[in-house]
């Protein structure tokens, strides 16, 4: 009976060791950074990881990509605790819960491990700095710039298809757009209407069609919402208005690929998650090697993205701004899969 038990324990031990030894190759490079997404299997973060690996190659450091199975704060904290225990050289985290991660982030910093957040910020005390993908003004301004390019030198009528009339971020962007339109270079653009599709695919589609009827000489629809821009692209395609009405705004490559290629939406904007991952690793490297301490005003260089200055504001605390939003168009859209 005792012997049987011994066999059972041995059998289990063998299985476990198989599982463990198969997976447990730990890198022993000089600096090991970890990119922690909200969860695994998310193409957005997989793209960020591609950028992070590119930075790793340039800097000669190791970057591992580790996340929890679900986008859940409890699991993410468990993961971060095991990373602290391994004394990694730094982590870039997209937080599942900005508050719940603060105590763990503090622990890491106390253990001498630089922590930065990207994409979704950790509360100010739980990280050295946040890598901010975009600011309000730039997001509003770039959409007017794209619309102006699409309307051509002679300008024309443009309309905005937003999400809900109460969405604070949408309204803030629309305010910026209205301010931008007052600039002399946009004098020939005329904003004729702002309509709301409530981030509902069908309603957005119907609102876009109503715009075609109401303004037969409409030239551009700006949709600062991923639902609205895709629905507008489909509406233009279905109505046979390609080349006559152009759609632009904020969208994601996989959603918009079809409309970029058929000409309904030649260009749209959003930040590039690959650049976000790339910059995160450069920031971690600068922190870990002591080039910067994470104080506002310090400057550093992040490879192909150029020079950055650390800034500080009331909302985000100490942060680095990735830069202007990234414009996706026919030339580059096939490089992206998210």
């Amino acid at each position, binding site marked *: 009976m005792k012997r049987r038990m011994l066999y059972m324990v041995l059998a289990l031990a063998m*299985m476990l060791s198989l599982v463990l030894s198969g997976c447990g190759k730990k890198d022993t490079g000089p600096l090991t950074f970890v990119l922690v997404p909200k969860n695994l299997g998310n193409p957005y973060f997989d793209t960020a990881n591609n950028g992070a690996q590119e930075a790793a190659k340039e800097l000669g450091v190791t970057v591992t990509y580790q996340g929890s199975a679900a986008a859940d704060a409890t699991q993410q904290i468990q993961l971060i605790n095991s990373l602290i225990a391994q004394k990694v050289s730094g982590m870039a985290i997209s937080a599942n819960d900005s508050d719940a991660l603060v105590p763990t982030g503090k622990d890491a910093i106390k253990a001498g491990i630089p922590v930065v957040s990207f994409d979704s910020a950790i509360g100010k005390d739980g990280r050295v700095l946040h890598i901010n993908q975009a600011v309000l003004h730039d997001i509003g301004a770039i959409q007017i710039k794209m619309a102006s390019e699409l309307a051509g030198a002679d300008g024309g009528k443009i309309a905005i298809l937003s999400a809900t009339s109460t969405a604070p971020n949408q309204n803030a962007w629309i305010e910026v757009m209205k301010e931008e339109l007052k600039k002399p270079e946009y004098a020939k653009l005329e904003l004729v209407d702002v309509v709301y599709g409530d981030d509902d695919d069908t309603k957005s589609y119907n609102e876009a069609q109503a715009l075609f009827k109401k303004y037969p000489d409409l030239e551009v629809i700006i949709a600062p919402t991923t639902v609205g821009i895709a629905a507008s692209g489909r509406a233009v395609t279905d109505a046979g208005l390609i080349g006559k009405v152009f759609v632009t705004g904020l969208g994601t490559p996989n959603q918009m690929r079809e409309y970029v290629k058929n000409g309904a939406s030649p260009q749209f904007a959003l930040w590039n998650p690959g650049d976000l991952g790339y910059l995160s690793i450069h920031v971690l490297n600068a922190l870990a090697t002591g080039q910067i301490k994470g104080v506002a005003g310090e400057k550093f260089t992040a490879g192909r993205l150029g020079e950055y200055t650390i800034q500080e504001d009331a909302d985000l605390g100490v942060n680095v701004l990735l830069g202007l939003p990234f414009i996706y168009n026919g030339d580059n859209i096939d490089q992206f899969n998210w």
Partner: protein
Amino acid sequence: MTVPSSPDDETSSKSLINATAPPRPFLARFQRWEWMLVGLILVVVALNSALSPYFLNALNLSRTSSDFMEMGIMMLAMVFIIITGGIDLSVASNLGMCASFMGWLFMAGVNIWIAALAALALGTFAGFVNGTLVARMKLPPLVVTLGTYAFYRGVAYVLLGDQAARGYPEAFTYIGQGRLPGTLIPFSVALFGALAVLFGLVLHKTTLGRYLFAIGNNEDASVYSGVPVARIKIIIYTVSGFMAALAGLVLAARFGSTRPDIGNGLELSVITAAVLGGVDINGGAGTMGGAVLSLFLIGLLRFGMGLLNIQGQVQGVVIGLLLILSILLPNVARTFSGSGRKLHRQTVWGIIAFVVVFTAFVAFFFWSRAPLLIK
């Protein structure tokens, strides 16, 4: 009625033994399954210490142990419920509701300790509702607690919406983040230890505990023998509600904040720990010692795999595999020992088919995800 605790020979005439004759020497109550768990824990510790220099480090172990204490606190009451043949799926939602209620009160300007007491009262009441529906209305516990699982989580969202309650005072966050003065032992671990001893004594040394096993083995017989079945059921579901609220306080203190999705999905980990610890999911058998050991086994295993940079999904596969083996192995052992009933041919083919399908699945899993999972 698969009983992981007694793989073979004379004691294996099933769980009735536990109900009718538990007065055995103390050590004998640690049947083979508990030793199996001890063995597994030793294997995990040995393997991990060999594979990672960071495993046997007091500070690291202290930090990681507080990661699964909320789970453990809820598991103690869950063991009671499962032993009676019931289940409480609402624990994690109840945790979320109570933590959110506390956060909501705190944000409204109520003193944190009063808010915490109110949350404990709410959780206890929520458990009482479960118990009343199960015992008095005679509804199946699975359905009742599935309903309150959705309901309690919904209340959490109604209270906090997409907001977070934050800014708890340090005296409160000590519950989840602090350590006992002068030691590395987290306060939450000490709290869990004390509660585990208490629950263990109730289960194995009192009449109430004896009744729990009796109800799990044969509820009708218990009723006719004068066991106050309904009252006992109400008591244990109410206790489970209280423990969920307590776990909510600990988790909110550890996070230093509350969002309505706090503790989402923990109920399944809680049930996994209890069943892996040898508590029979059909009721009637199990020990508190086994459940506590399996909690530490899961915690150490997860921590060890985390240190080796094994991704979350793979950790889930390993824990799931362990759970299935914990039910399968005693049966297989009984067959090989020859003293049990003979295996039918279908059963053998069934097991073989299962192993083949499972291996194929794991192979496919690694083949398709390996570049992403292991780096």
